[in-house]
Each structure stands twice: as structure tokens, then as C-alpha cells.
């Protein structure tokens, strides 16, 4: 029996596939169709699948979403409170997966920075994308990555020329908007930094207004030798929405990627990040906080592979679950044979603020090299009673004392954001969330 979720997508497929950008390209069209065929064969992952052990899809499987471009994409959008304040740099806005030129700013790009939408790129000059998109077909992927491969209609294609140092951050806003019927959207992003290039990206998921969309976003990020990417992710999707994100990172020699993430929104959210440190001395830093409350379910899944010598990865993640919120964290680190000099550390500390909240965490280390430094730790606990009492004894009311301590718990995650404007933005998003809960 095919899950209603998938059946609805298959039913809509014929009408949609022929209208997608690049539908006239035989290699792309056949790839999309073969992804759908694989999806029909394999279905949705269930709890027997290790990677989905803590995230049940039973309820989602029963829902139907309409695919293809539809209502909701042309709504009025007020970017105040969503876009970076006083920001003059490049910005791309997608509403329910559709590009909104009227809200975006792609003129006067700095030298060395090339940005286009995926739809445009497929129309104008598809050949360079062939290789990049094909690479995704090599990566192991599940139902949502396949849905994305089949249906992604648009996205961002970004390249930084070798040695270009781009000062202003690039803003990528992926917004959900209400629709008459539940609707699915799929976005595909490609980021490539040439040798020695520098870039910072703010990726923000937010809601124009409450919506019950299902979104998938898949990104390929390739950081070439000696290049540096700073990436700030703020995920504040609508409380009824479902969001499945997958990011493939590849780091060449001495490349650096720093990710700072706040996972706050959505009803059911999963963030998969698989990284390959394939050049010597590549360095990956990931820091994030996930904060499920209400009945939210937020799953973070890291898969970091050290495939070259003297590579370093540092993952520091904090989970805070309140009410009936559920968090899941998997941090897998693999050190390949020969990847000597690897320095890998993984820490996931979690706070449960309510008796009904739950967080499952599992660090997994697989080491096949000899000269390796690896440390990992995961804890689940409650707010420290002594600290709470200390604050209260000075006159601070209990709810405020709890807020202060939970904010402090998250602060370590945001401390290492270099750009003061982005640090302020992230602090503000965190504070606003805390006041709301």
C-alpha cells in the first residue's frame, strides 16, 4: 500500500513534471522520473530505518499535499522582522518554493559573486548544472531527498570566484504562506566557493502567515581549497508546517565552514547535514540549538566524514524541550582509514523543561584511522535548581529566572558568530522566541 502522502504526489506528477524548469532536458527529466520510480519502490522510511528511529512518519504519511506551483506564492509579504535590518547586500526570497523577484535584490552584485535562480540557470545555461545535480544522485538519499530531486522547481545557484572576499552576507529567505489546500514545495540550492573565497550566508525559514505546507530544501555546498563559508541558519517555520532539509557539504584542503543554527519552528522538522572533509586540514564547525515546544518535533541528524589528513570537526549542539516537545539528535562521525591527524569533537547537551518533553540523543563514532583525537559527550538534564533558587532569592521571578538560564544554556552556541550584525540578529531571534514561550 502506497502512503497517501506519496500517492497524492504521484497523482500530481504527470501534470507537474512537464511544467518544471528544465523539463525539456532529457537527462534532467529522466532523472526526475527515475527518482519518483525509486520512491514508489522504496516508500517512506519507518522506525526500522536507523536514521529515522526517533522520528515517526505515520501521521504525516496519511496526509495529502498538492504538488506544483499554486496559490499562496503571490501573497503580500512584509519583510520587516524577517529580512536583515539595514542590509544592502544580495537577497533572494522564495515563497512556498517560488522565487519572488519583487522581494529580492540581485542587482549590483559585488565583483566575484554570481547568483541566479535555479529556474533561470536551467533555462539559460543548464550544462554546468548537469554535473552538480548528477552528483546528488550518487549520495544515499531517502524519500524526501527523492521528492525534492523529482519536484524541485527553483532555488538558488550561487558561485564565488576564487579569492573573492564578499563582505555583505547573502540573505536567503525561504518563506511559507497559507494555501487553500495543503501544498508541498521543494527548493534546491547550490553554493560553490572557489579557492580562497570568503562568503557569509544567512538562511532563514519563516512564515508570511500561519501555514500548513510541506517543504523540502536540499542544498549542495562545495567549499574549495582555502575558502571560508560562514552560514547562519534561522529556522522559524509556521507551527503547523513540515520542513525536511538536507545539506551536503564538501570541504577541500584547508577549507573552513562554520554553521550556526537555531531550529525553532515547524510542527515536524528534520535537518540532515552530511559533510565530507575530503581535503587535508579542512575544518568544519557546527553549532546549533533546537528548541521544540508545544507538540513540535525537531530532529537534527549530522553525518560528518573525515576523509583526509589533519581535518577537524567541532560540533556543539544544545537541545531544549518544553511542554510536549520532542527533540532528536544524531551525531555520527566517521574517520576514514588514512585520515590521520583528525581532530573530531561532538557535544550535545539537552535540557528538559517539562515532564512531558523528550529528547533522544545518540553520538556515533566510527574510527578507522590510528592517529586520531576524538571526543564526544551527550547529556540530558533539567535546569539547575541551585541556580534557579539563587536568581529567585535575589528577587527575579521564576519564569524570568528560567528564561535567563535557558538563554545562558544556548549562548555558547551563538558566541562564536563573527559578524556582529549576524550575532545581534541571532540573539534577537532567540530572545523573541523565549519571550513568546
Amino acid at each position, binding site marked *: 500500500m502506497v502512503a497517501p502522502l506519496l500517492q497524492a504526489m504521484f497523482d500530481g506528477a504527470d501534470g507537474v513534471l512537464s511544467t518544471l524548469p528544465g523539463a525539456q532536458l532529457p537527462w534532467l527529466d529522466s532523472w526526475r522520473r527515475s527518482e519518483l520510480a525509486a520512491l514508489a519502490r522504496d516508500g517512506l522510511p519507518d522506525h526500522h530505518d536507523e536514521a529515522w528511529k526517533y522520528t515517526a512518519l505515520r501521521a504525516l504519511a496519511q496526509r495529502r499535499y498538492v504538488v506544483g506551483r499554486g496559490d499562496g506564492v503571490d501573497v503580500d509579504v512584509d519583510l520587516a522582522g524577517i529580512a536583515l535590518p539595514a542590509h544592502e547586500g544580495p537577497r533572494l526570497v522564495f515563497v512556498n518554493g517560488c522565487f519572488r523577484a519583487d522581494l529580492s535584490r540581485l542587482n549590483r552584485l559585488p565583483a566575484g559573486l554570481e547568483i541566479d535562480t535555479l529556474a533561470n540557470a536551467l533555462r539559460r545555461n543548464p550544462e554546468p548544472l548537469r554535473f552538480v545535480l548528477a552528483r546528488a544522485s550518487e549520495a544515499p538519499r531517502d524519500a524526501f531527498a527523492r521528492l525534492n530531486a523529482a519536484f524541485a522547481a527553483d532555488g538558488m545557484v550561487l558561485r564565488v570566484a576564487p579569492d573573492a572576499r564578499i563582505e555583505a552576507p547573502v540573505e536567503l529567505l525561504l518563506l511559507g504562506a497559507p494555501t487553500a489546500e495543503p501544498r508541498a514545495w521543494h527548493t534546491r540550492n547550490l553554493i560553490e566557493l572557489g579557492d580562497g573565497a570568503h562568503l557569509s550566508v544567512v538562511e532563514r525559514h519563516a512564515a508570511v502567515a500561519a501555514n500548513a505546507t510541506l517543504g523540502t530544501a536540499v542544498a549542495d555546498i562545495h567549499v574549495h581549497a582555502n575558502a571560508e563559508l560562514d552560514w547562519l541558519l534561522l529556522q522559524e517555520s509556521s507551527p503547523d508546517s513540515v520542513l525536511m532539509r538536507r545539506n551536503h557539504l564538501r570541504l577541500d584542503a584547508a577549507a573552513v565552514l562554520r554553521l550556526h543554527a537555531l531550529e525553532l519552528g515547524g510542527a515536524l522538522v528534520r535537518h540532515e547535514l552530511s559533510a565530507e572533509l575530503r581535503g587535508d586540514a579542512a575544518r568544519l564547525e557546527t553549532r546549533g540549538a533546537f528548541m521544540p515546544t508545544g507538540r513540535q518535533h525537531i530532529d537534527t541528524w549530522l553525518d560528518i566524514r573525515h576523509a583526509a589528513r589533519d581535518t577537524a570537526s567541532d560540533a556543539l549542539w544544545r537541545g531544549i524541550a518544553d511542554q510536549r516537545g520532542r527533540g532528536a539528535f544524531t551525531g555520527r562521525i566517521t574517520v576514514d582509514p588514512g585520515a590521520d591527524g583528525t581532530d573530531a569533537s561532538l557535544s550535545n547537551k539537552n535540557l528538559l523543561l517539562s515532564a512531558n518533553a523528550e529528547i533522544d540523543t545518540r553520538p556515533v563514532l566510527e574510527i578507522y584511522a590510528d592517529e586520531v583525537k576524538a571526543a564526544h559527550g551527550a547529556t540530558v538534564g533539567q535546569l539547575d*535548581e541551585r541556580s534557579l*533558587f539563587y*536568581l*529567585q*532569592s*535575589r528577587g527575579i521571578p*521564576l519564569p524570568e529566572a528560567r528564561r*535567563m538560564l535557558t538563554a545562558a544554556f544556548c549562548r555558547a552556541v551563538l558566541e562564536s558568530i563573527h559578524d556582529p550584525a549576524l550575532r545581534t540578529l541571532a540573539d534577537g531571534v532567540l530572545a523573541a522566541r523565549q519571550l513568546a514561550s
Partner: protein
Amino acid sequence: MLKIENLHARVAGKEILKGLSLEIKAGEVHAVMGPNGAGKSTLGNVLAGRAGYEVTAGSVQFDGADLLALAPEERAAAGVFLAFQYPVEIPGVNNTYFLRAAFNAQRKARGDQELDSMQFLKLVREKLKVMDLSPELLNRAVNEGFSGGEKKRNEIFQMALLEPRLAVLDETDSGLDIDALKQVAAGVNAQRSPERGFLVITHYQRLLDYIEPDFVHVLAQGRIVESGDKSLALKLEEHGYAWLKERPQAVGA
């Protein structure tokens, strides 16, 4: 100001205070001394309202109101301050931010105007001088990386800032060398006033050389077994707490 009557309290199911009575009037400094396990710290924690300290009988009146009915933050706003024996390190919470939050929360609870950050910093600088604390400590996390002496001085500095009506000092002398002890005592003495009461809880007489109490009480097995003036502290110093056991139990304590 503070009237404790027949107070019984349990911690983890074990009765620690067994009928403690004590009255403190405004302007008075009372010292409570006693051996380990007598219930000294329990008394401080019960007064401040710490969870897990269960009052099973008796009453505590503060300015005529039932102190035990109030949440810890309400007691603070009413004017009760506990200087902790072990001040808590709170990583990630900036000291200045914490102090201002506490200061303004108390003012708000009392219906007073809150201070903005400029006004507050000015006040903090004045009070810092009194305790001879480095302004640099304000930029750190609460008590994090403070030496033992700095932590205790920080407690007294908070007291100076929050200006409570009743200050309870829980073994503020423990772990201090003589210089730090003198500094802490000087800070306390600077805040003695006709409107303010002090309850100084200590194991050793030494602190009372520098903070001269008006009354000294001996706490043993959960009750006040002896009360007197400061000479009682000297007697304890000379004979030790064992001396209490050799005497018949004080009557009516």
C-alpha cells in the same frame, strides 16, 4: 521585624529544626552559632524559601506578614536577603545583567520606578567602591571564575545594592582568610542601620570579632538552647560546643 515561633522543618524527610523561636527587631544584629548539623544552614534556607525545605509546624512573621506564604522572589522584594554559604556559579548569565534584573524586579514588585542602564551603572559603581571589588567582575558571568573571597564579597556587594531590611548571612566567614574576612565584615558593618536587621549564622566566633552582635544564640539539635550577649560567643570559643552537652538543657528554648 522578624518573629520565628516554634519552627519545625524537614529536609529530605528528616526533621532538622525542632521548635526554633527567635525574634529580631529592626537595627539589631543577631548571631546564631552552633555545631555542624545543628540546623544553621537549614534556618537560612527556610527563611529564603528554598524548595525541599518543608516547614511542618510553627510560623515566621516578617513585618507582621506570613513570610512562609511567599515565593522566594516575593521574600526578596519584601526585603529578605540571604548571603549564600556557597554562592552559585551561573555560566552564560552576565553579572551586570543579573544584578539589574534582580534590582528592577524588586522595584517593580514594590511599585517603584525601574532604573535604566545608565542610572543603574552609576549606582553599581558607587556600591562597588564600598566592597573594593574590581569593576571587571561585572562583565563576567555570575560568580564564574571568582575566587572564594570574591564570591563572598560579591554577596555582600549584592546586599549593598539591593538594600534589604533583613540580611541573613549564612556562614559568610567560611573559607575566608583573615584579610578577606575583615573586608567582608567591614562591608557588613557599613550597612548596619536602625532600619535593618541582621541574622549572622556562623560556626566560629572569629567573625563576631569584626561584626559585633547585639545578641548571640546557640543552636543545637534544631532549637535555640542558649541566648545571651556577645560574651556567650567567647564562652563557646573557650569551651567548645561539647560544653553545651554537659549542661542541663536550657528551659523554655
